[in-house]
């Protein structure tokens, strides 16, 4: 017994000494390492979108903040179909300052829930400059469709924005009564950025928040045009379409395995993809297919959810009652093979015309185009935009629109892809500067 005790003490001592010897230089190294502030290094917009920000370029953000995953009571009355119950409950991510502080809302991009890593990055950056932050799921995510969407077929901007606005009020009411909110700010990325612009305009009349500043991060200008570009990426770059996915995954894993044998197998770090990109120089078409597939997966999820929730009879036959453990194999092909065009024609438009309304295709498309609110965007000094010239969701005319409309409130970098440079020291510094300035 004594021996065992002594052995443990001894091994503990050896362990601690070794930790000290090995740990101290490590801490010293971390302390001197500064993020690189040079221009974002990846010169291909699609690759930047997939790879993100290489570790050397990443902003240093406060770690170990007291993030809370808050759960709200559903804002709409709706039976959860058993096959979608994994997406319950309605969650958002929150981090609150101890002192009185302004509250910033962050709206997630297409398909993303509030647990997305971008939520964590943006919330940490905003927290650092004095904001309490609430990151909200996208109206295109299943959790939002189930718990917050009055009309669970996302895509009509007006209705999605109203749902978001109601969720924001619920989030405000969810704060502790002692927490003093001194004002409101708003940001969002991708589709969430476009929605943020519409929310800001809606707030002009509804008047609940009076946002001191609003920042659009890589917004879609014409949502319809952007999603068509994503559809085209997949159609042009994935051989065999849906049937080609298994082969594509197998090839991708083959590349992954080569990296396994080239380094540290289990401990991926942020640099992993960048290293892979640099060393393996994958074909551009494959990168395009990855971007297209990621988008298509979000769309397939959304289409399946919308179909099941409204019993649209497009993917799952009306007379089929899916149980919680039923195989979805028969419906995966139908979901994945839906382009946005199909979604629009077979789910979105029929839903809004289900009771004989005459909502046209053109009205729906025009309703989610930032160019329709040009004067509002140009005339409000508290709204800014960050994006990249090589963002694959934008066309040149849309970049030009943003530049003209926002003037010096637009930060348009030559590189960065779609959100690829979001985590970089430069972008985060610019974002923090935007939110830290006194309100105009």
């Amino acid at each position, binding site marked *: 017994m004594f021996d065992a005790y002594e052995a443990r003490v001894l091994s503990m001592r050896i362990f601690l000494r070794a930790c000290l010897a090995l740990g101290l230089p490590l801490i010293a190294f971390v302390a001197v390492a500064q993020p690189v502030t040079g221009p974002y290094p990846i010169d291909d917009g699609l690759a930047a979108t997939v790879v993100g920000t290489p570790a050397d370029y990443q902003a240093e953000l406060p770690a170990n903040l007291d993030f809370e*995953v808050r759960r709200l009571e559903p804002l709409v009355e709706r039976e959860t179909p058993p096959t979608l119950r994994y997406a319950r409950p309605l969650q958002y991510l929150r981090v609150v300052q101890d002192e009185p502080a302004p509250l910033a809302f962050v709206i997630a991009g297409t398909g993303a829930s509030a647990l997305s890593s971008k939520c964590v990055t943006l919330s940490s950056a905003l927290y650092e400059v004095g904001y309490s932050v609430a990151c909200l799921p996208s109206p295109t995510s299943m959790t939002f469709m189930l718990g917050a969407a009055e009309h669970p077929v996302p895509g009509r901007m007006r209705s999605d924005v109203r749902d978001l606005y109601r969720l924001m009020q619920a989030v405000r009411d969810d704060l502790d009564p002692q927490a003093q909110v001194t004002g409101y700010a708003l940001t969002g990325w991708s589709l969430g950025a476009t929605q943020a612009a519409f929310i800001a305009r809606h707030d002009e009349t509804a008047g609940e928040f009076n946002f001191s500043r609003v920042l659009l991060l890589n917004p879609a200008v014409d949502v319809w045009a952007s999603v068509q570009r994503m559809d085209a990426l997949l159609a042009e770059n994935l051989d065999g379409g849906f049937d080609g996915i298994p082969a594509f995954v*197998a090839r991708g894993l083959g590349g992954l395995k080569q990296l396994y044998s080239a380094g540290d197998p289990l401990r991926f770090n942020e640099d992993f993809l960048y290293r892979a990109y640099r060393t393996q120089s994958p074909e551009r078409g494959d990168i395009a297919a990855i971007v297209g597939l990621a988008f298509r997966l979000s769309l397939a999820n959304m289409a399946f959810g919308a179909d099941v929730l409204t019993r649209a009879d497009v993917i799952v036959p009306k007379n089929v009652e899916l149980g919680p453990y039923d195989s979805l194999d028969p419906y*995966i092909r139908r979901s994945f093979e839906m382009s946005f065009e199909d979604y629009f024609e077979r789910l979105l438009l029929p839903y809004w015309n289900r009771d004989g309304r005459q909502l046209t295709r053109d009205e729906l498309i025009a309703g989610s185009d930032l160019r329709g609110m040009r004067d509002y965007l140009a005339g409000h000094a508290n709204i800014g935009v960050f994006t990249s010239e090589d963002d694959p969701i934008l066309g040149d005319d849309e970049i030009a629109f943003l530049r003209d409309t926002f003037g010096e409130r637009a930060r348009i970098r030559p590189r960065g892809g779609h959100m690829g440079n979001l985590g970089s020291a430069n972008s985060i510094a610019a974002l923090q500067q935007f939110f830290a300035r006194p309100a105009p």
Partner: protein
Amino acid sequence: MNNPNARMYARPPCAFLLLLCLWLAGCASTPVPQTVSPDTPDEVPVAETTANPLAIYDPWEGFNRRVYRFNALADRYVLMPVVQTYRTITPGFARTGVQNFFSNLGEINTFANSVLQAKPTSSAVTLSRFALNTTVGLAGLFDPASAIGLEQRNEDFGQTLGHYGVGAGPYLVLPFFGPSTLRDSIGLAGDQGLIFALDPLQLDDHPWARLPYWAMYAINTRDSVSFRYYQTGSPFEYTLVRLVYMNYRALLIEE
């Protein structure tokens, strides 16, 4: 209902794993594993054998989906809270040490299976790694072997069986362990049996140590894996995980 103590950690985003698996498609030509049921008649073209090319032979899908759900709930309410507490109270280097320690114990299985598959390089590298890390690496807490270029191998009894032509069998989701197949489950039992029989930590002589050992084993295993249930947000997550698992195992075996 609310959980004010739930902490979030920066970790790979939901799409990350999937993207990772789709990544670098141009780099290797590897065979596509069997994705259709073996009882499909030969004359049917592969593209028409099933409504879903992502499907894998999964006759026990109903059972598997129940276990998947059970794992997700166990993960959310038991494992992850424990792991998050562990991450809060343990400095990063100590967690790395624990990871190295269990990883070093795992070399015993890798070595045994390298020998069984008659792979001399893998056997030699693994044996050297184990010898070096157990001594210089202080009972495996550090990993000097990787630092001098002895890269870790990945072999297990499931792969050995596959190496000698045993088919994967039906897809199987194991409680706590997650995705597997009938063959890989037998392999897992074999590997665990070997560790039990060899008893490298001499737990037989110190029965009190069993509980902390298994607790740390479970915590470390969960800590090392970045996957979070339902984080893809997809109703098809079960199918996607199944596809990636089967492809990944097929690649490991083919190696």
